[in-house]
Structure formats: C-alpha cells, structure tokens
C-alpha cells in the first residue's frame, strides 16, 4: 500500500502517532522557525504549521511549510483557514502546496478577525471549513475546481480537520465532524485536552466515524495559564487538582509536563490514534513533552 505522507503511513501502521506544531515567525526571515523544526524533528512524525494563528499576521504558511521541509526534512501539516482568503485564493494555494511537495493539509474555518492584531480588517469566510473540505475532495477525486473546471494534475494531499471534544452542547460538533468525514477528512486534531473523562465520552459518541483522532496536548506552565485557558479557550476543561498541583510546586514546567504524561497514559488505551503536542512559541517544550511521554512508557 502506498501512502501520501509519513503521517498517513504512521496513522495506518503505528500504534501511536505524535504530531507537533510550529508557528511561522512574525518576520521576513525563516531562521527562527527552522531552529524550532530542528528541535522537534526526531520527536514527531510531522508538524502543523499554523495559518496567521489567532488572526495575527505571520509569515505565509505555505512558504513556511516548504522551507521547513526543504531545509530540515521535517514533514509538515499545512494549516489553512477560511478567514483570510476567498475560494479562488484557497484553491490556488492548495494547488501550489501540492506542487511544492507538501503532503498533509489541515482545514480550519479560522478564528474571527477581531481576535488578532488587525481587528479592523475585512474578514473573508467565503467558505467554511466543511465547504473547503468539499472543494478539496472535488479537486482530488474528480480533478475539478469549484467552478467545475478540469485540473490538469489534481492535488494529492492527506486531509485533516479540527475537532473540540469539550464543547457544550457537543451534538452540533459531532454532526459537524460527521460532515467533515463525509467530505474526506481522514484525521482530526483536537482542542487541548486535560480531562480524560471528556475524551472517553466523546470517543464513545464518535465510534461510528472512520477518522483518526489526534488528541491535543498542551502542558500547563502555571496555575495562571490554566485559569486563563478555562476562561478563554472554548471546550477546555481543566480538573481542579491540576491547578492545585501547579500552585503547590516551584518547578511549574516540570509539574505541567508530568501532569500531561499522566493524562496521556490515561487516554492512550482509548481508541485514539495519537496526540498532537502544541506549545505556542516553545518548540523546546514540544520536544521535552514528547521525550517525557516516550520515556514514561505511556505509549
């Protein structure tokens, strides 16, 4: 069997897959992010590269993915949101991604524009994530663009989407995941998860879906960060005892990583495909987190 990407191969053949995440630099030089890519290269199968995350301007995802792959050999997962580009721009970037050798794509609707550093800009949202997944499916399976025009060479990308197991009500999110899977989503990366009970229930509710779940893992670096996330991050539920443990310790980073190693050991037996490790602006901690998980024998 041939696979489009190392990620697809890992999800099909490995017991546990780990992906990481890097944010392109707010800079015209690629150097900063290359250091990060080198740091995590041996710890993850592939890394997401975010697309103007939280609506802040950073270097183009497409170019960043290409430069990371070319200069470090680390496989990337090209994140693409519907916030900043209309259907023409999205499709042309997808064609370019394929031409540049990018193998994985993660389709998102995108945070709203007022959440970032250009709140006065015009938001696009010509398509939503489900519609963009539909567009990619058409491009790949039928060789047609959204206008029904033939593509000389269709793209061939391994397609993923996002999911948030902690939302309330959860049923609309499950229905949305059903639509995403129907539109060709093969893997879904989740919002940061801290409460294994939330995931257990969710995995039960989506057992009818043929999709590989990579659970979002972000170590808590302080009690303040935990409280901030509970208040501001949709679907993030953090058990009180984790916050207490962080308050009680001096080495908060060490304790934060320890807590997540425990979470991973609890969720690993559930029907998940692996984890997606995210630490904004701290590739060193992504590497440290993954090494701690592997050393613990949890996976």
């Amino acid at each position, binding site marked *: 069997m041939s696979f489009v990407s190392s990620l697809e191969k890992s999800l099909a053949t490995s017991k546990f897959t780990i992906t990481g995440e890097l944010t392109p630099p707010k800079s015209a030089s690629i150097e900063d992010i290359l250091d990060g890519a080198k740091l995590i290269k041996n710890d993850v199968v592939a890394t997401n590269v975010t697309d103007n995350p939280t609506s802040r301007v950073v270097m183009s995802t497409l170019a960043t993915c290409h430069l990371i792959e070319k200069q470090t050999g680390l496989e990337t997962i090209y994140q693409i949101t*519907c916030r900043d580009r209309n*259907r023409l721009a999205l499709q042309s970037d997808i064609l370019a991604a394929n031409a540049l050798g990018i193998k994985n794509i993660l389709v998102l*609707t995108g*945070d*709203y524009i*007022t*959440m970032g550093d250009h709140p006065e800009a015009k*938001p696009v*949202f*010509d*398509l*939503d*994530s*489900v*519609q963009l997944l*539909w*567009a990619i499916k058409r491009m790949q399976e039928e060789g047609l663009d*959204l206008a029904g025009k033939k593509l000389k060479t269709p793209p061939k990308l391994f397609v993923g989407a*996002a*999911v*948030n197991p902690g*939302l*309330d*009500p959860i*049923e*609309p*999110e499950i*229905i*949305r995941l*059903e*639509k995403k899977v*129907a*539109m060709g989503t093969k893997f879904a990366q989740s*919002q940061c998860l801290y409460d294994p009970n939330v995931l257990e229930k969710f995995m039960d509710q989506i057992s009818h879906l043929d999709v590989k779940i990579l659970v979002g893992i972000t170590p808590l670096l302080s009690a303040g960060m935990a409280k901030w996330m509970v208040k501001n991050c*949709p*679907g993030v539920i953090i058990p009180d005892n984790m916050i207490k443990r962080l308050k009680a310790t001096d080495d908060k980073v060490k304790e934060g990583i320890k807590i997540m190693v425990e979470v991973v050991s609890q969720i690993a037996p559930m029907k998940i495909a692996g984890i997606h490790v995210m630490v904004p602006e701290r590739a060193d901690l992504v590497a440290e987190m993954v090494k701690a998980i592997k050393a613990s024998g949890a996976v």
Partner: protein
Amino acid sequence: MIITEKKPIDEIKESLKDSKKVFIIGCGTCATLNQTGGEEQVKELTKLLSDKEIVGTVVPETPCDKRLLKRDLRALTDALNSADTIVALACGAGIQAVAELTRKYTTPGLNTKFIGMVERIGEFYQRCLACGDCVLDETGGICPITRCPKALLNGPCAGHMDEKCEVNHEKDCAWVLIYKRMKDMGQLGKFKAFRKPRNFQKSTSPQQIVWRKPQ
C-alpha cells in the same frame, strides 16, 4: 425595519461648518419608530444647531419613497431653495432620495445600522443582511448569515462558550440557537444536511429590481 442611530452632534456640526442656512428633514416611518428622525428629534436637532439659521423642517411620511417625498416637499420649495445644506435624519436610502430630489448639498444626521427586529422601543436586533438567497427554511427560522459573524452554513465553529459567540461573549451563538430550535422541532435531519458555498452574485451591489417598465 431599517434601524438607524444618531450621528454624534460634533460630526454633524463639522459637516455644516461652511453652512449658514440649514433645512432639516426627518423620516415618518422607520426613523420615527426608532426615535432617531421623528418630530421630536427634528426639534432637538434644531435646538442643537442654534448657531445656524434653520430655514425649515419637515418630517415626510416616507422619505425613501421618492413619490411620497416629492409630494411632502412640494409646498416647501422656497425654503429648501434658500438653504445651503439639508440635514436628513433618515436611513441611507432616505438621505440619497432627498439629495437626488432636491439636488441640494445633503448631509447625514444618522448612521444606518441594519435591517432589524424591534423588541421594544430602544431595543433593536439585526436579523437580515439582505443576502438575496434566503435559507431560513433550512435553519429553524434563525439566520446564520446575519447572526453568525462568520456566516457559517454548516453548523457552529468550535469557538462557542456557554452557548455564546467567540466574537462577542454577550451574544448567543447563532448555530447553537439553530441546533436547539431544530432539535425541538424534530428537524435535526435538515440540520445535518451539507450546505454548498454561497452564490455571492445574488448580493453583488448595487442591487435593483425593475419588474415594471417605466412609462
């Protein structure tokens, strides 16, 4: 209804800085119900512009309807002609009808906000973006184009918290509302349907409808 709000008086005064004689025109329909362009608000603005000579005021029945506006301005031609500037307390359509009909320098006294529903006087909610392709039959009678800032068509994004929108925590997530209403009505099957991308040609501006040939 077209919902309007008063422009800050300093902005109106700035636009009138070169004018001595001013005529004020209100709106007897939406802006009267909004309490932004009725008889009361015309009087109030007359007082606020006490440094100007107010050569006349009128609240036409429906200023955005050129036929009615023409009728209601007919007896006021001399006063209108003597004015340097007209201040119109009406929606954008009304202001433009006034400018087009009088051919006078016309300045807006209101900002036009949205097509809205009146809950009670002083409480107005946007309910329609005039997208030209109504989907309310598929969404439980709640408009996602208007009420979801991203105008999503395939369910909520993953940004809602406590059933509120990620963009403004004081506003309800439109898609959670749609989900709950459709579930109550036994219409979740329709909720699950995939909705294709919108056709923006249906709302390309300027829109016009001319089904009757001019005589």
